[in-house]
């Protein structure tokens, strides 16, 4: 009978922890339009799959009246569960317990579940909702952050790491998400910054709201710190489920293959792209024409939209897509677009996801702001990422491929396995107008009708050089293909690349232009 008593006592003890900061604090959390930490975990994971650990961990701080403070779970819930059957490790900071503040034990619960994820080779998801360091614990809180960052780095490229910002995440706390692979934010709920509006106003006299400084939209559109942006917590949780189903559990596995399906997109692929290279279109339609069921999970949709990145499936397998987007900034490469693509390429390479590059770009973005922002070193990241990647790399040149951009967009010269080009592709050192102006400067200047001569020379250049056949004649392009054949040929290329075995010289690690 004593066991029965013990069981009842355990249930009581658990019930207290499960209440977090108590009814009043929960009411406040809900009033802010936020779910509780526990509800978030339960809504994200498969029904009845969540198992919690370290419920009874207590903080050891004795100063500043902390000795009398009981903090259920020390303000963070940790455990394991499944998402669509895939095992994951998860933690969620509980804002109802002392503002979700991070003390040493709180951090140690997080590092313990991270260690577990790394050992068990499963993804780790962190839900951040915390006022920051627990000031009362002083250096203990800083130690806690540091130990988390260290593990984020150790786990990088080994297991996928996902950060979900569902509340404030300020100061040191922001660096754990920044080190992880994907950051999810929700409108009006997520707030991320190193120094908040108060400090900025005191020190610099600049007045700004939390939302304008580091709200969800700012990170999704301006800073690029966020990868997925949602209008509600539920939408956000669904995005996480979709992502988790598309990526592998670790770098030792491939993403789970599902039943292959045909694209649903019915528009003829050759009708998507206007033949006039000056006219825009939505390159995502080309992706829809290629992927199973025309599904595409776009990453960083709002930031640097001049390049499109994301995941889709072909023949049931996960593929990473990188595509220039002529609809924005004519599809140029700039600092942000290079950063965006480079990181994505490295994620795909680390996690055995083949990369398909769809190219239609006029070059790099001209401008003092770009040059001074370091477009040289940012652009170099892309060259590095493509060259370094050993996963199958397939490029389809849809329309324009000029100059440095041609090299950067997974060219043969950076190690592309398959290079396809549509028959209208213009592969050249620069756009025909610019090239004609330089090469035929004398003829144009000396002509009676300069414009007519320029037009004639531009046409001459297009016929002679701005086509796919010069590159094809040198073997830089493997095949000039009809647009309708694209899916079939890419599927075949993926099929024959399945056992690709490519090695890089042994090294501790490279030194990419971070």
């Amino acid at each position, binding site marked *: 009978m004593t066991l029965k008593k013990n069981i009842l006592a355990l249930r009581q003890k658990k019930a207290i922890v499960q209440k977090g900061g108590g009814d009043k604090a929960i009411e406040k959390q809900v009033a802010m339009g936020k779910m509780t930490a526990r509800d978030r975990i339960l809504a994200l994971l498969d029904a009845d799959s969540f198992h919690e650990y370290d419920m009874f961990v207590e903080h050891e701080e004795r100063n500043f009246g902390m000795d009398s403070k009981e903090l259920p779970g020390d303000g963070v819930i940790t455990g394991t569960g499944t998402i669509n059957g895939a095992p994951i490790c998860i933690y969620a900071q509980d804002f109802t317990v002392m503002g979700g503040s991070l003390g040493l034990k709180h951090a140690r619960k997080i590092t313990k579940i991270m260690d577990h994820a790394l050992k068990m080779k499963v993804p780790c998801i962190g839900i951040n909702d915390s006022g920051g360091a627990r000031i009362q614990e002083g250096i203990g809180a800083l130690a806690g952050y540091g130990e988390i960052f260290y593990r984020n780095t150790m786990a990088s490229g080994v297991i996928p790491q996902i950060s979900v910002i569902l509340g404030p995440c300020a100061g040191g706390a922001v660096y754990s998400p920044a080190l992880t692979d994907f950051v999810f934010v929700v409108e009006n709920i997520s707030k991320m910054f190193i120094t908040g509006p108060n400090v900025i106003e005191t*020190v610099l006299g600049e007045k700004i709201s939390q939302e304008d400084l580091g709200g969800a939209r700012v990170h999704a559109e301006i800073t690029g710190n966020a990868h997925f942006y949602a209008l509600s917590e539920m939408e956000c949780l669904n995005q996480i489920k979709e992502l988790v189903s598309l990526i592998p559990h670790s770098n030792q596995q491939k993403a789970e293959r599902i039943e292959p399906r045909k694209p649903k997109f019915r528009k003829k692929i050759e009708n998507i792209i206007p033949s006039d290279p000056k006219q825009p279109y939505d390159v995502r339609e080309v992706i829809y024409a290629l992927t199973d069921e025309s599904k595409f999970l776009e990453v960083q949709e709002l930031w640097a939209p001049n390049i499109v990145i994301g995941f889709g499936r072909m023949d049931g397998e996960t593929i990473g897509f990188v595509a220039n987007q002529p609809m924005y900034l004519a599809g140029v490469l700039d600092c942000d677009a290079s950063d965006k693509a480079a990181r994505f390429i490295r994620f795909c390479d680390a996690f055995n996801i083949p990369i398909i590059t769809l190219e239609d770009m006029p070059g790099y973005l001209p401008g003092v702001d770009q040059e001074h922002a370091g477009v040289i070193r940012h652009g170099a990241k892309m060259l590095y990422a493509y060259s370094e990647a050993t996963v199958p790399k397939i490029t389809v040149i849809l329309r324009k491929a000029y100059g440095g951009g041609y090299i950067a967009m997974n060219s043969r010269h950076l190690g592309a396995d398959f290079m396809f080009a549509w028959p209208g592709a213009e592969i050249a050192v620069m756009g025909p107008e610019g090239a004609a102006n330089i090469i035929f400067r004398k003829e144009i200047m000396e002509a009676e009708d300069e414009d007519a001569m320029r037009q004639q020379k531009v046409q001459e250049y297009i016929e002679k050089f701005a086509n796919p056949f010069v590159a094809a004649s040198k073997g830089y392009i493997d095949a000039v293909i009809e647009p309708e054949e694209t899916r079939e040929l890419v599927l075949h290329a993926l099929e024959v690349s399945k056992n690709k075995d490519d090695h890089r010289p042994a090294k501790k690690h490279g030194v990419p232009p971070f």
Partner: protein
Amino acid sequence: MKNKKETPEYIDFAVTARKYKTLFTRKYQNRKVWVDPNPYEIQSFIPGTILQISVQEGEVVNEGAPLLILEAMKMQNRIEMPFTAKIKKINVNVGDRVPKDTLMIELEAVEGE
């Protein structure tokens, strides 16, 4: 997530010699346009507070002489005369809190310099 515009109004955008029809991003539109710096304009390089002004309008000041002290981030930054010139106009007062790139002092070339 899909914020597709129904009928987007494309803008002419010259990347090289060719103009492309495309859309701008908010970030691109808000970018800081480069202005060639005018050596006769002394601007604040950081937001801060004017603690002290050491010159007067009309005065000819030698290169390297102190102009004013701009306190920012708890540092007292001594702004010095970049070259010998005449103070044409002082646009700030002691105690003023100035944003970054505020035109604080305008200079004028000295005859014969």
